[in-house]
């Protein structure tokens, strides 16, 4: 198995330019499945995410999707395009949860290229991306910056492979 053939060839450090923006092709409908299993997997104890009966009397009238489930799905939807060749996820900043997400909402992810710089190692560089998450009616639900250490194109691969 050669690691170079397992990932895409259009998303190395060299392939991104500051100022670019992308709409990622796949959306994802957040069913009760995703919110319930991930909220419990990470042991979030706030029952606003898992007690439908208690939430009937709340301003929302139903369970809320945990913000980090929303954020993780938006970041996940973008990952193949911008961080499939990442060596490391370095950090996050400015994560904002701007509107409630409910079971049945569909999420779409967008990404801007904010900055690029050399990394500590010669075979990779640091890219800062800003992700934006929207739901089906255009409501913005999430924004956040993500700093990754991204591989430069290996010698084994040419750009037009």
């Amino acid at each position, binding site marked *: 198995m050669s690691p170079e053939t*397992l990932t895409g060839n259009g998303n190395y450090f060299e392939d991104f330019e500051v100022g670019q923006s992308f709409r990622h092709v796949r959306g994802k409908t957040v069913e009760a499945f995703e919110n319930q299993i991930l909220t419990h997997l*990470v*042991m979030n104890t706030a029952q606003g995410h898992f007690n439908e009966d208690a939430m009937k009397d709340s301003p929302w009238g139903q369970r809320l999707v945990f913000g980090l489930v929303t954020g993780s799905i938006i970041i996940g939807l973008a990952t193949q395009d911008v961080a499939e060749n990442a060596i490391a*996820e370095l950090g996050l*900043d400015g*994560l904002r*949860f701007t509107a409630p997400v409910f079971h049945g909402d569909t999420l779409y992810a967008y990404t801007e290229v904010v900055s690029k710089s050399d990394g500590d190692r010669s075979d990779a560089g640091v890219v800062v991306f800003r992700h934006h998450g929207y739901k089906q009616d255009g409501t913005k639900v999430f924004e*956040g910056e993500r700093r990754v250490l991204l591989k430069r194109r290996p010698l084994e691969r040419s750009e037009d492979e």
Partner: protein
Amino acid sequence: MSDFDPTSAKPLRKGNAFEDFEVGRVFEHHWGRTFNQGDNSLFTTTTMFFNPLYFNVEYAKAEGHPDVLINPMLLLSTVVGLSVEDLSEGGGPFLGVDDLTFHQPVYPGDTVRARSTVTGRRPSGSRPTFGIVTWHTEAFNQRDERVLDYKRTNLISRRRGEQGRDRA
């Protein structure tokens, strides 16, 4: 059949209110968590986090790691999850996370614990029944090496009787 009356049972409470978060107070969060391969594969595939470092051990080894890496969003979500009872279960929307650093990789079998320090609080100008609290949360592995830290901000319910009083 016993004659138990559920309406006579004492209701138990969890969580803290705005007034409990004095600046400088430290919370050592409960439980900790050992991450395993099942946690990681479930989280990574459900969120479509498509980088083979998190689900292909041969790829991860070729990159110099002893095993697949625990997904950093799983690490973050779990550390927040472990902190919820102390910090935000009392009620109030999650506003944001800033200045987050993943300091080093976490692998299956590693155990993480978390603690938070209150760094700021103020009344909410627009919502008198809430205040805004900020914490610095840190997570450590079983060797007490810091693996993650961030600042988190929430709206937090004020205790009844304190609501609307601009006292922080």
